């Protein structure tokens, strides 16, 4: 009885490739978008001529963006140290 032929590893792991593409798009564009929206929110919060509600919304936007940025940095450090 002969040993079964091992299945060769594919040259391209399309599943991983798809994950890399999808996650890179999500995280890369997402981070930039969050930061940019945060800048816009900050500018709104600082506008003295804007209504109070709008300025408050802007402050909330800044808070949300700063939290997201901090979480992203934490994620980045986690990824980096996970390799180590």
């Amino acid at each position, binding site marked *: 009885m002969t040993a079964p032929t091992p299945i060769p590893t594919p040259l391209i792991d399309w599943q991983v490739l798809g994950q890399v593409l999808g996650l890179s798009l999500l995280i890369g564009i997402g981070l*930039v978008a969050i930061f940019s929206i945060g800048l816009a929110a900050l500018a709104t919060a600082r506008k003295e001529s804007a209504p109070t509600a709008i300025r408050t919304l802007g402050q909330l936007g800044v808070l949300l963006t700063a939290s997201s940025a901090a979480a992203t940095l934490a994620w980045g450090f986690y990824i980096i140290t996970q390799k*180590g």
Partner: protein
Amino acid sequence: MHNTFVLILVVGAALAFDFTNGFHDTANSVAPTIATGALKPRTAVAYSAVLHVVGAFLSLKVAATIASSIVNQDLVTLPVVFGGLAGAITWNIVTWYFGLPSSSSHALVGGVVGAMLASAGSSGVLWHGIIAKVFVPGIIAPLVAVLVAGIATLVSRQATSRIDEGSRGIGMRVGQIGASGLMSIAHGTNDAQKTMGVITLALVANGTITGDASVPTWVVVACAIAMAAGTFIGGWRIIRTMGHGLTALDSTSGFAAQMSSAAVILTSSHLGLPLSTTYVSTGSVIGTGVATRGRKVHWKTAGRVVFAWLITLPAAGCVGALAYAGESLFGVSGGAVAVGLVVVAIATVIFARSRKQKVDASNVNEPWRSELIPDQSSLTA
């Protein structure tokens, strides 16, 4: 088999490679930061150098391998390692001179493959691994980066279109500094870890330490310092190409490029498909140029960069093979010395030539006029 002299040469070569890796890859972390004025040139490289040290000390797990999945680890010997390093160092210096961002990791792989071919023939090389681990990721990396950075640039410009230029510029520059820091730490971790692996492999092969020993502290410290020193020297020629030679960057596109690069690199690493930092960073810069209306990509320069990528493996491989042949010719110890002297001579000649058309912190941001070397008439010193 103990051969302390050869071991010292291999460790020295590994640290020299680490040093060239530092100045060669600095641009990946800081080129957009410098190009947009987010940080002054010297400040940027100092900042990156410090964070490279931090990253190197985060490398807690080191595998005593070199080009694993690419060459048969059972056939790796100290002369093969030394030949591979010689090939990688030489290619790094040549591409630095021409201001071409190329992958130091691929140069090391190429050098080792070349040395292995000279040593053990085709049976020593895992061709499937080269295609799966080098070629395929090498093609994917810049394409993914162009796409991510291009879309990110469009999103960022749209989201901040109503902010005054001054406030937007300040905010984006702050973001660039953060992204640059993250990339510096990631690069310090990844690439210093590779050199630590090479040195550890050499120590194990020489019988100095056992295969299950942890990485000696002096190895970690030496690799961290070598990479940081190279980073601080600053590969200004490559920084200039990436910061100005591919496309004109502003604070928004610079931030988009750097944050996209960090995201792609960390994501791909997390998913087990590490992509070249250099290819991703270059692709990101090009992506922002493609996405910015009215701003052109210097496709001629981009073409030269891609050409350098295509020949990295064979070029470093040729030098690696020649280095191994040289070692065989003069015996292990004498051969390693001879090869080392040749590499030093090549580096000296190239460095001397580069001083005649200097690119440094003072002129790295001069306007790009289709040439790496800034217009000399515009310089004050």
